[in-house]
């Protein structure tokens, strides 16, 4: 009897806090398997750094999924913005630089990349909100456009030899805390405020939950939808800048597949594909859960083919619990 109640209670907790339970469970598992080796600060620090860029993409697409949309263009948009950022940060004496012989102030690559991301967001948003294209199709198209633009802009070459100041943006640290982690914290905070404490954020949930009801509640559905893709675009631009800065280069393989990683992460983080549900904390935990899986398996020396397999299963299990939680029974 006691046992049954205990089981029931823990089942309740598991469905209520799937995201956190998965994360903590994996963390414990990993520390047991490695005798605590994997949980040293230096390792955790590496994990955080590795996942930081992905967090921006995840926050962006997380907001989009809350409005019941999707974005497949993330990977190539981040690739494009990374290339744009890199092109304005090359050493002027590098002979194959895109703008050889010219040097730009540090702010230029940042602004250019964020603007490029924002423009892409507006483009996606316009197609979806006003053009009434299904998000899947609109962003499938813009994914290809972004890829094409990146190849044309870079002439399919590596954009390398970046100046040290630009690299310092992401490679530096404040005391023991790496810059990247500070950026993630700041941006996550901003997105949290947006979603939780502004009208527009509340509208995103409403639109995802019931677009028609949102409309008759006086919400400008089109404008808000456009804005959500715009905000996401800005985040992708930020991700691109930081990625170029961290890697010290950009090429056509940069951020490859990031859309799938980001979508998987927020889904594991409890953002429902049915729209109207999701939190920033969940998205972040989702990102780090996925990171932990990658990192843990590498640490344990699991073959990378098997890593893919395990990752797939974990996504499915996490989403399974989530769907149960929100399933309409009537």
């Amino acid at each position, binding site marked *: 009897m006691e046992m049954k109640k205990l089981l029931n209670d823990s089942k309740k907790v598991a469905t209520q806090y799937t995201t956190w339970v998965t994360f903590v469970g994996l963390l414990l598992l990993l520390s047991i398997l490695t005798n605590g080796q994997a949980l040293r600060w230096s390792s955790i620090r590496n994990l955080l750094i590795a996942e930081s860029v992905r967090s921006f993409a995840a926050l962006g697409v997380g907001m989009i999924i809350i409005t019941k949309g999707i974005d497949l263009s993330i990977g190539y948009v981040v690739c494009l913005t990374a290339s744009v950022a890199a092109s304005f940060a090359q050493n002027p004496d590098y002979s194959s630089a895109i703008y050889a012989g010219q040097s730009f102030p540090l702010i230029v690559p940042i602004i250019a990349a964020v603007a490029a991301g924002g423009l892409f967001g507006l483009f996606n948003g316009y197609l979806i909100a006003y053009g009434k294209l299904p998000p899947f199709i609109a962003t499938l198209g813009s994914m290809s456009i972004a890829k094409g633009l990146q190849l044309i802009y870079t002439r399919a070459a590596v954009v390398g030899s970046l100046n040290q100041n630009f690299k310092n943006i992401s490679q530096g640290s404040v005391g023991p805390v790496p810059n990247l982690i500070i950026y993630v914290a700041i941006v996550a905070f901003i997105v949290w405020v947006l979603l939780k404490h502004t*009208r527009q954020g*509340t509208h995103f949930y409403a639109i995802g939950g019931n677009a028609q009801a949102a409309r*008759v*509640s006086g919400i400008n559905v089109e404008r808000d939808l456009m804005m959500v893709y715009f905000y996401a675009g800005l985040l992708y631009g930020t991700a691109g800048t930081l990625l170029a800065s961290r890697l010290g280069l950009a090429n056509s393989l940069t951020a490859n597949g990031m859309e799938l990683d980001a979508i998987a992460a927020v889904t594991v983080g409890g953002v*429902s594909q049915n729209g109207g549900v999701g939190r920033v904390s969940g998205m972040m935990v989702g990102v780090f859960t996925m990171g932990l899986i990658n990192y843990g398996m590498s640490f344990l020396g699991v073959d990378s083919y098997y890593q893919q397999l395990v990752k797939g299963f974990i996504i499915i299990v996490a989403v399974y619990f989530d769907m149960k939680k929100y399933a309409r029974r*009537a």
Partner: protein
Amino acid sequence: MDTTFALEMEGITKTFPGVKALDEVTLRVKPGTVHALMGENGAGKSTLMKCLFGIYQEDKGIIKLNGKEHRFKDSHDALNQGVSMIHQELSNVPERSVAENLYLGREPLNKFGLIDHKKMNVDTSTLLKDLEINVKPQVRIGSLSISMQQTCEIAKAVSYNASVVVMDEPTSSLTDNEVQHLFKIINQLRDQNVAVIYISHKMEEIFAIADEVSVMRDGQMIGTYDVAEMTNEKLISLMVGRDATLRFPEFKSNVGEVLLKVENLSSPNPRSFQDVCFEVHRGEILGIGGLVGAQRTELMEAIFGVRATSTGKIYVDNDEILNMTPRKAIDHGIGMITEDRRGSGIFPLMNISSNTSIASLKEYLNKLHLLKHKEMKEESVRYNKALRTKTPTMETLIQNLSGGNQQKVIISRWLMTLPDILIMDEPTRGIDVGAKYEIYQIMGQLVEQGKAIIMVSSEMPELIGMSHRVMVLCSGKCTGVLDKSECTQENIMRLATKFM
């Protein structure tokens, strides 16, 4: 006992997190009778029926059909055992045709194992003809009016040839004529020895059609009575557990200057409303009457900016408003409680407090333009308290409330926007008698404060009891405006059927 019951439900108990929805409920229904199930919003009627229909699994209790015990693991199982149900909320697939919806889950197959569309359409056509329902099997069900969709749901429930048919508020979106039509169908079922369980908040209907009535209160069964020995007052007091209240409250309002004026408003669709003119004054309740298809909802949606108009003008407080949108309408002090609760009312995965405050966020911003969550929640609580929304907590998701309580949350939402002009499209749909009175009282208070209300209603007593004037539409055209003194059922019906 010599009679076997068509259905016996004994000691049914069902708990949801935070609520005991059913507490040892027993219900026995005889074959060939219409058994009404009554009770306040949230009393547990729908939950009991969902246990019967295999949508919920009861925690405890026995279900017997014709004396034989059954346990339904899902709705499919229930249908196979001869139980069919019309759900309180529309449950069709709007993008598919009428025939496809009727045969959903039991599509006839041809010899290749593919769906036999021809047979499906022919069968549907025959069924609809038998029931005298005038609609083509091939049309997309989502393109039909809500009442026609509901009529199709009724046809669907009948088509299973079940021995127990459950109807959960089947008439909440039907007008009088269609209700009569439904009663004809129910009488046929009764003659075929079917047991019909009939849930409704409309007293007239219970006395018109039911043989027996069972009353529930707070998840418990109060008792089963013969309708012939029942009176209106007795039934209400059984339901609410105290003495019955008046039907309509008294309110004294001064009808003042014109607040909303609509001139020659026409829809781009020639079959919808055309050339409609009317005025609403401060302190006035304008009722809008008419049959289904009279385009009342369409007209209201156009005024609120949800639907396009081709010609005509809308003035609020003497200012003409061009290119109306819901946002503009709200900014000009108009609020609208829409007819289709599920389609354009609730945000199913948001909690009660967010569902209440969603249309008034603008009023709850601090200096930094961030939302004042605490105040917003307090106001939401206040409105829902006033309407006595029955919920475990304010954090409960609205989809877990009973239908009537969802409606109360939507009404709270619009009261919270402090509208000057409130459009209420079927405001008391699915609301129990006690709560109806409370809503009427609130309507009275609003007009006493000099606000204006436009109320679309298919319930004659409500239309006559609450309105200062009633405008009647027929086939999209205004056929007359009746003053309080001329407001009788006959006059309204005469105008509502002018072009028929």
